[in-house]
């Protein structure tokens, strides 16, 4: 069985929605993760708050530090989870249930995590 990371890219919810709406999204996210964990397919995960975020960029032979955003506003990484799956297709099925996808333009990127076996 492989591990895949599911990376959520979306707008900063607190800028576009009420606290009540945020709470609903939070519950949906917890239920979605709980559903994966109930199949014994959950490996880990974290939310990535939008405050205290910086980008260090190499420009003109210098490291420049900027505050977020980090590119297109809908492409900011808001969190990730790691799932266990037999194939990328199975991991994609998990990703399809992610509540982040309710927002137009938001996305979930599915990437396989390399096994530290020197081959992959």
């Amino acid at each position, binding site marked *: 069985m492989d591990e895949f990371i599911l990376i959520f890219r979306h707008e900063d919810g607190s800028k576009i929605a009420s606290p009540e709406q945020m709470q609903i999204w939070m519950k949906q996210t917890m*239920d979605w*993760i*709980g559903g994966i964990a*109930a199949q*014994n397919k959950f490996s880990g995960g974290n939310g990535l708050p939008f405050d205290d975020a910086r980008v260090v960029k190499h420009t003109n032979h210098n490291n420049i530090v900027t505050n977020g955003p980090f590119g297109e506003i809908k492409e900011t990484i808001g969190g990730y989870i790691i799932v266990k799956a037999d194939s990328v297709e199975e991991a994609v099925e998990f990703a399809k249930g992610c509540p982040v996808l309710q927002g137009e333009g938001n996305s979930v990127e599915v990437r396989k995590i390399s096994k530290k076996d020197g081959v992959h």
Partner: protein
Amino acid sequence: MQEQELIPHLFRTEYSKITAVLCKHFGLAQLAIAEDIASDTFLTAAQTWPIKGVPPQPVAWLYSVAKNKAKNYLQRNNLFENKIVPQLKNNIPDLEGPGIDLSEQNISDSQLQMMFAICHPAIPAEAQVGLALRVLCGFGIEEIADAFLTSRETINKRLFRAKEKLRLEQVQIEFPGAVEINKRLDNVLTTLYLLFNEGYYSESQNSIVREDLCLEAMRLTYLLIENEKTNLPPVNALLSLMCFHASRLEARKDNNGEIVLYQEQDETRWNQELIAKGVDFLRRASGGNTVSKYHIEASIAYWHTQKRDTHEKWENILQLYNRLLQLEYSPIAALNRTFALAKANTMNDKTQAIMEAEKLALTNHHLYHALLGELYTGTDNAKAIDHLQKALALTKTTAGKNMLTKKIVDLEEKNSC
């Protein structure tokens, strides 16, 4: 207390204390000898008390007889010179001086240290529970076999191998260092948790043994709380969990000792004092910054002390199971989580819950089919009956079988109308 009840009662409370103290004195390699001397002490009591009458202070009598037997044993067998001295080079016990110390303090210290010794990582979990029952709780082989639904032989073998392991690994009866305590404590708590569950969920028909298992697990957990080194948040959380469950011990059995399922229990018989204690220990568990699985399970158990079906109750239980499963997967938690999901998220019919339940694919588990039977009821009764029948074939308890049969009959009647 009548004499014929007194000895078994004292055996249950004092045997393990005597064994722990003697074992601490002799070293864990001599566990079998410590057990023999403790047993022999009770044999002497059983032989002499009916003739000479019960001594005015039976416990003190037992301790002094045990001490004498231990001394005699050591002298008679020259064990002292040949085996004990080489092992205890720097710590030679003075047999004639203070000697074997059966003070309250040393008893609880010895039992605690024994708990940590038994929970040594080298001993398999099943054997740890067996050893704990035998050595820390004074259970008979028969009772242990009954609790595990297995034979005396199996238990004897299991205990023998575990004792061998303790000897080979040269496990010491001592408090592990501060760093080691946290690592070992996990094992200790797992053993106590299994011990309690063995009593609470055992399919054994012997309800007295089942309850004793629960009470012993609670007594040992409390021993950890009484010691400042081990009075840690997860320990309090575990005891809280046990209190909440134990509050239903009375209400969950009928006059014949058969289990009464949660839904059918008379909640006025739930023990409010234990529920209040559970709340208290849960509050004490909230110090510190780690949330253990015991914290989460205790919180779930707290919500189950409220019988009324409210949305708040089920939403809280659902979120707690979501967290529990992220921490540690178990089929039971997965099934209970899906039941809570059905209860909490019913606004858009039961399709979501059915879909999630089917994804669990725990087709060999009776509760999996019972859950699907429940969820399909009213939506697709034929499927519901099919699942309930599968559950019936897999379930072992009488109460479970009765409940399932009743549901099937009800549904078949509805279908034929």
